[in-house]
């Protein structure tokens, strides 16, 4: 990474589907190793923003710079190999693969041995498979999933499935991890665990995290800075305290009348 660039910089991005504007003139910045929250009411454009960042959609206008390089419009797999990984709001594990294999799929894009070596099963292939096996196992152990390595991924409890998705994304060695509502459907104990896990991602793996989350306790508890989206626009940004005190944010969440009362 060259000095002077933010880890990720979104400049004036818009995304339109016909006449519907999902995002309008959105600009955000993420620095390396930062824990950043992205909140907003339903339909505010949070997942749309994720989708243009990870190449699912191409922004209609604007630029996305990752470590100074343009990534807007690149295919998903290239964006991932550049160092940006994500999880999904609705869990997207590989259902026919066991837990360990789900994590090992993250190594496919970085394999040294290609097709021919794989079929030949030479020494180079075997040592690489062992490395991947160990690395995958280490990651699973790290997040307490090693006992389930050979279980079908669908058989995991819901909270573990979300955790596995994070481990799988982390296995691609990202410098920026995008988490789309990781706490959705979790019970309070699992949410506490999740908060610790996200903090560890940054502290022990040095990964910056962009977190989309509805649960304010989770977001306010761990994020250092927040962006608030409303109707496809950035409504406010700042520390959790600033956001909590911002009358515009309160209006967006609670409506005009309440805004006046509280503000």
């Amino acid at each position, binding site marked *: 990474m060259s000095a002077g660039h933010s880890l990720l910089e979104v400049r004036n991005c818009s995304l339109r589907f016909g006449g519907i504007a999902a995002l309008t003139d959105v600009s955000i910045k993420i620095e390396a190793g930062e824990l950043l929250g992205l909140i907003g009411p339903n339909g505010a454009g949070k997942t749309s923003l994720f989708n243009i960042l*990870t*190449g*699912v959609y191409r922004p209609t206008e604007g630029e996305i710079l990752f470590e100074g390089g343009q990534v807007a419009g690149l*295919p*998903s*797999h290239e964006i*991932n*190999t550049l160092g940006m*990984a*994500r999880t*999904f709001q609705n869990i*997207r*594990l*590989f*259902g*026919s*693969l066991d837990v360990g*294999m789900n994590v*090992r*799929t*993250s*190594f*496919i*894009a*970085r*394999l040294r*041995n*290609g*097709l021919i070596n*794989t*079929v030949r*099963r030479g020494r180079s*292939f*075997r040592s*690489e*498979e*062992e490395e*991947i*096996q160990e690395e995958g*196992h*280490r990651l699973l*152990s790290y997040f307490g999933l*090693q*006992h*389930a*390595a*050979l*279980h079908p991924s669908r058989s995991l409890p819901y909270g573990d499935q979300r955790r596995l998705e994070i481990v*799988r*994304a982390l296995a*691609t060695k990202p410098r920026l991890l995008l988490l789309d509502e990781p706490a959705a459907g979790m019970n309070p104990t699992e949410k506490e665990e999740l908060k610790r896990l996200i903090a560890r991602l940054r502290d022990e793996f040095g990964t910056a995290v962009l977190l989309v989350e509805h649960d304010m306790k989770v977001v306010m508890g761990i994020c250092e800075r927040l962006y608030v989206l409303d109707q496809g626009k950035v409504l406010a940004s700042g520390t959790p305290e600033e956001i909590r005190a911002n009358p515009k944010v309160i209006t967006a969440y609670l409506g005009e009348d309440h805004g006046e009362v509280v503000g």
Partner: protein
Amino acid sequence: MSRSYHARIKNPRLALGAGIALAVLLQLCGGWTDPYTTQVILFAAINVILAVSLNLVMGETGQFSLCHAAFMAVGAYTSALLTGKALPAMLPQLAWTGTSWASQLTFLPVLIIAGLIAAFAGLIVGGPSLRLRGDYLAMVTLGFGEIIRVLLQNTNAVGGARGMEGILPATNLFWAIGFAAVTLYSMIALVRSTYGRGFQAVRDDEIAAAAMGINTTRFKVTAFVIGAFFAGVAGALYAHAVEFISPEGFNFLRSFEIIVMVILGGLGRPVGVAVAAILITLLNEWLRDLSQYRMVVYALIIILFMIFRPTESLGPFFRRFLPKLPMGRTETKPDNAS
């Protein structure tokens, strides 16, 4: 865990060795079967190649392809032209009878060239069309299959609708069973690796696979091209086994027959698909008397298989005899847990 993992890596090599040994043995003990039985075994081996290679495309990667027989046709015609015209013209002083040494020694390169040309055809169809999904891909492959058939029908150099006859009988038990073993080995070795899990990841969830850095289009095209390669080899073996090929022999129904084998064997289970290919070949022979009702019987069998799912009950049965497969075994290595 790591011990069972090693066993899994080495398993397919044993199978390959056993398969080739069987092929050599059967060939050396020639004369133990009548020509009819030999031909049925050849067909079974060729169908194993076709079904197991289509399984990579349909079963592992989840792409619905309706033109496997067209790749077979490309391989069949390529090899027939090579052994019938090109080789005798290049080396007229040698004896080219199919069973002669010259024919047998050049048959391996002929098979591989046939496979490569078919693979190239696969690249041409697959490259642009695998960006499509589901129904659209099925339509494009169906269209391609028909294009190949119509092209062959209207090319006089290869006999047009009359087809090519007098193809040298170069295919024997060694080539057919040997290549079936090579195909089965390659497919199992490929799929049971970190690389190979990419095909299944693409099948399970394309968006998630791409988000993990997997180039989904490349995996789909790779599966398609490998499938086409082996279909081409199978076509070449077929042409030199029956000594006569015509465009009608590689129509949509032939593709459908291979699809039936893949579905019966259980999508994504190479060994099951190979067994299904052999069973269907035998069924073909048993049902020869009611040939026009054959497809009706096929349909009935598929429906029955869908209801009773015998492949799923066969799974534990096979697993008992392959106890090293680590399915369902839990992790017991405390030193790594910290």
